[in-house]
């Protein structure tokens, strides 16, 4: 299994945002895509999730052109949690999570006993089991984010893409989510997430991909990537690198 870009350009309405990128993402890792606003990290993720087509070049999945891969098969192998989600009306939490099983069900969408078990398990894992009979539209933003996470987890894919999953969350929920993702990664899932917080990425992820102006600048372990040179070059920021006193991972502290 692998996800890669080959001379890939992606953009909107004729504007190229990701420019001729070559990138192979390592399998089985917890990967963060980093970079300043507008660098193309979310755009790249959207192309990997087939929300955006390639303008030129190709994205590859399992050695095949991702955009020609059978839709239903891809939905069993690669799941996306978009950044902003609609608020579906009149749908209960358990029904929404159950839609995560739709790539596996027959065309009428009837759930098997196993499907029901997986749905229940994912609701428990994300702490949404108690909310199962409530309407999604009546939940708080943070609760709703966890319900959507439960849905993509019910998709049971080896790869999981997340677009800034922590953006609208309180700090405690952010930490909780990062722990959950770490645990999923330990169970064998490859996780690729766009993050804003560099220190959060360095602490929880084991592979960082740094982009600037649509181009790949650095990739590798947090140790190798998170340096003052990188911060200066990519974010135009003067910063020192220290050790996180709790986890021992690198951490940046901004200079005046």
């Amino acid at each position: 299994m692998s996800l890669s870009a080959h001379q890939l350009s992606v953009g909107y309405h004729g504007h190229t945002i990701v420019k001729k990128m070559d990138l192979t993402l390592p399998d089985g890792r917890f990967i963060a895509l980093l970079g300043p606003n507008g660098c193309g990290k979310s755009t790249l993720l959207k192309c990997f999730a087939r929300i955006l087509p390639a303008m030129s070049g190709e994205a590859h999945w399992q050695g095949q052109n991702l955009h020609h891969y059978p839709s239903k098969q891809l939905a069993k192998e690669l799941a996306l949690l978009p950044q902003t989600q609609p608020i579906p009306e009149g749908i209960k939490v358990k029904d929404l999570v159950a839609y995560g099983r739709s790539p596996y069900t027959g065309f009428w969408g009837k759930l098997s006993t196993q499907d029901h078990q997986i749905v229940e398990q994912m609701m428990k894992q994300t702490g949404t089991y108690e909310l199962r009979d409530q309407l999604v539209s009546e939940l708080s933003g943070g609760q709703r984010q966890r319900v959507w996470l439960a849905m993509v987890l019910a998709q049971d894919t080896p790869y999981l893409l997340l677009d800034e999953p922590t953006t609208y969350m309180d700090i405690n929920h952010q930490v909780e989510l990062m722990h959950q993702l770490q645990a999923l990664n330990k169970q064998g899932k490859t996780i690729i997430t766009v993050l804003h917080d560099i220190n959060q990425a360095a602490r929880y992820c084991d592979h960082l991909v740094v982009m600037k102006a649509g181009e790949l600048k650095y990739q590798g372990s947090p140790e190798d990537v998170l340096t003052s040179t990188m911060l200066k070059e990519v974010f135009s920021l003067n910063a020192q690198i220290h050790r996180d006193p709790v986890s021992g991972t690198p951490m940046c502290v901004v200079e005046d």
Partner: protein
Amino acid sequence: MSRLFRSVSLGLFLCLGLLLISWWNLFAWSVVPVSGADVLHAFTSFNDQTIAHRIVLDLRLPRLLTALLVGACLASAGAIMQGLTRNPLAAPSVLGVNAGAALGMALVSTLPFLYGALSTSIAAMLGGGVAWLLVMLLGSTWRVGANEHGRLVLAGVAISALCAALTKAVVIMEEDQAAGVMTWLAGSLADARWQTWQAFWPVALISLIGALLIAPSLNVLQLGEDNARNLGINLLRSKLLGSLLVLMLVGAAISAVGSIGFVGLIVPHIARLMFGQDFRLCLPVAMIIGALLVTLADTLSRAVTYPMETPAGAILALIGAPFFIYLVRKRTL
């Protein structure tokens, strides 16, 4: 369990209501007196010499069957459109399909060089299709990320007005046909005969079955396009298939009885209110409620100006227009 019980009892209640209204429709407000018992006898012991029996089987029954199927078609077309656009105000009459279909039919039935070139139902589908395509382009629902509810409805209103104006112009140019076209524009079941029914039911039935088959993918589409794609739905295919079904449903209904509005707007809301958001359940329910509503409107259409007939479309507009205003006011567009 209580949810299932509630659904089943509501469903039985609806079917019973449908049966009673159908029976009532067969005898109510007939110029030649027909009684409820006559209706039953016409089926059980038909007598060729009894005028009441002849009226029931030759005039009332095809009219009733057409009304039932027209209602089912328009209601499911509305449900599919609301599902595809995720817009509660979407309906064939709101988004220009009715007006476009009417224009298509007016063109082939009045203009000499088009006369007979296409069957009226094909003309209705083409007209409706072109109008809807224009509305979609103007309302920009096909663009990535854009889903502006108000804009889509405004585009629908504009295109409907344009089509209506063109239809009137065509009708004025060909005065001989004008009266027929005007009746037909108002949507009336008064002229529905066995002939109408025979031309109508095959397309209608195929489209209704098709509508049921796309119900599961409409469910997933309610989660938004990004999520639907992520869950393995082929968006382009689903949208094209859904649009084609809408055009077949509306085209068949409109070419049978003329332009009847508001059924497609109101009925899906009632179905959802009663049975929830699941299209696998609320689509078939919408078909039953649609059939019920149009049959009721047809029965009343004979009562309002008895012994004359009022078009059923006018009766439905009386119920539908206030409901539309209620929906607009309830939601922030």
